[in-house]
C-alpha cells in the first residue's frame, strides 16, 4: 500500500475531491482524473473523542480505548481531509499544526512531528 491518499481532480474546473469523486461538487461535470494527494498538511480543526464509540462498528484497539483526536487536515491541494490525528499532547494540534500522513487505512491518519519522533505514529497502519 502506497503511503498517499488517492483523490480526484475535475478536468473542467480543477476542484480536488477526496475520496475520488464521480462528479464534481463545484461545477457538476463528471470528467474527473485520479490524483495522489500531498502527504503533508496542517490541522484545520479537531476535537477529542473522549469516550469509546459504540462497538460495533468501532473496533477497540488492543490494550483498550484511549481518547484520540479527530479532525481535518488541510492539504496543499486545498481540500481538507478528515483524519485521526496522532500526537503526544492534544495541545500540539492547536494553531494550524503541521502534520504528516502516516496511514491511509482504515481511515486517513496524520501525526505531529512530536508523535513521529516518539515513534507513536503509524502503529495502526
Amino acid at each position, binding site marked *: 500500500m502506497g503511503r498517499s491518499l488517492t*483523490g480526484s481532480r475535475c478536468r473542467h474546473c480543477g*476542484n*480536488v*475531491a*477526496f*475520496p475520488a469523486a464521480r462528479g464534481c*461538487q*463545484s461545477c457538476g461535470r463528471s470528467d474527473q482524473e485520479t490524483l495522489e494527494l500531498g502527504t503533508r498538511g496542517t490541522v*484545520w*480543526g*479537531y*476535537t*477529542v*473523542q*473522549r*469516550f*469509546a*464509540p*459504540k462497538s*460495533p*462498528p*468501532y*473496533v477497540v484497539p488492543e490494550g483498550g480505548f484511549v481518547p*484520540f483526536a*479527530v*479532525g*481535518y487536515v488541510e492539504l496543499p491541494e*486545498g*481540500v*481538507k*481531509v*478528515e483524519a*485521526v490525528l496522532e500526537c503526544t499532547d*492534544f495541545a500540539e494540534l*492547536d*494553531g494550524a499544526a503541521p502534520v504528516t500522513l502516516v496511514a491511509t*487505512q*482504515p*481511515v486517513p491518519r496524520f501525526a505531529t512531528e512530536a508523535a513521529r519522533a516518539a515513534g507513536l505514529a503509524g502503529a495502526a497502519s
Partner: protein
Amino acid sequence: MSAGVSIVGAGLSKFGRQPDKTGRDLALDAIAAALADAGLAWTDVQVAFGGSDGSGLADTLVADLGLTGIPFTNVKNGCATGGSALMSAVNAIRSGAAEIALAVGFDKHPRGAFDPRPEDWGLPAGYGEAGLMVTTQFFAIKIARYAREHGISRRTLAAVAEKAYRNGALNPNAWRRDPISAEEIAASDMVHDPLTRFMFCSPGEGGAAVVVASEAVAARLGRAVSLLGAASRTRRFGSFEVFSPSIQGSGRPSSVSADAAAAAFAAAGVTPDEVDVAQLQDTESGAEIMHLAECGFCKDGEQEAMIAAGETEIGGRLPVNTDGGCIANGEPIGASGLRQVHEIVTQLRGEAGARQVAGARIGFTHVYGAPGISACTVLGR
C-alpha cells in the same frame, strides 16, 4: 411572498420520555392539539405532509385520523424534516392547490439512539471501525475551530446551555425542567472538546404539528400568525457537514443556514435586526452561537459580548430558544423544526405564559439538519 399564507394552528405532544406512547401516538397528540388550536377538524384538512426519522411513515396516521382521501406525502429530511414538511404545506397554499394544509413531524428515539452506518453515508466501513461515525464529533470540530478563530470562551458555551435549562424550567411542556448552573455544565463530563455532556441535546420524544391556511381562511378563523417569509435550502459547494470525509474548496466553508435565512428574510422583506424572538437550532451550545451569526443576527465573535450581556435571554434584545430549545426539549428529529414554529406562534400571540417575550411582533425560526439542509421562517403578528 406572493399569495399570503398564515399559520392558523400549532400543537405539540408532550416532549420527553413517555414509555406508554408510541411515536405515532405523539404525532396524533400533536395533530389533535394543532387542529383544536385552529378550531378545525381533520376533515377540513385538504393536503398533508409529514415525517419522522425513525418512528414510521406519517401517511399511515390516516388510519387513526380518518380516511378522507387527501394527498398525504411522507417527508424524510433528517433534522429538517419538520421544516421541509412545512415548506411543502406552505407551497400547497401558495399554489392554490389547497386552502388548509397540515405539516406534522414526530419521533421517539430511545436513549443513546442514532447509530449511523457508514454505507448509508457513502463511506467505507473503515470509518465505523476507526470510530469516526460519531455525529457529535462534527459539531465539536466546527465550534472548536470557530471558538479559536472568533474568541468564544468555554464560559459562553456553558452560558448558552444554562439559558436553555432555565427557559425549559419556565416551559411546562419541556423535558428538562431543572435549572443547571453554568459551573455544573462546564464541569460535566467532556464529550468532545470543548463540549461537555450538559451542552448537548439528547435523542428524545415528541410530536409537533402546524396548520397553514390561505388568508381568506385565516381571516375567518382569527388568531392567525402571518408567514412573512419561508425558505429551505440544501448545501452549496464548500460546506462542512457531518460525516464528510473531506471539506472541498479553499477558504471558509459555505453555510446552508446562512443561505436559507437570507432567502427567508428577503422573501419577508424583513431584516434580522427587526426580529423580536428567535428559535435557532441548538443541537449543542456551540450550534446556537454559530447560528446567531450564520442567520445574520450578529457578526462572528460578537456572541461573546452579546451572551455576557444577556441579550439572548428572555427580556434581552433578542431572546433565543425561549422554550428551552433542543437542549431542554430533547431532539425528536422529525418534530424539532415544527416545535420551533409552535414556540414562535405562541410568543407572537402573547400566550407563552412565564416565558413570554413582551410585545413580540416578529419572530424567526431556523432548523438545520444533516447533511446540510436548512429551513427558516419569518413570522409576524
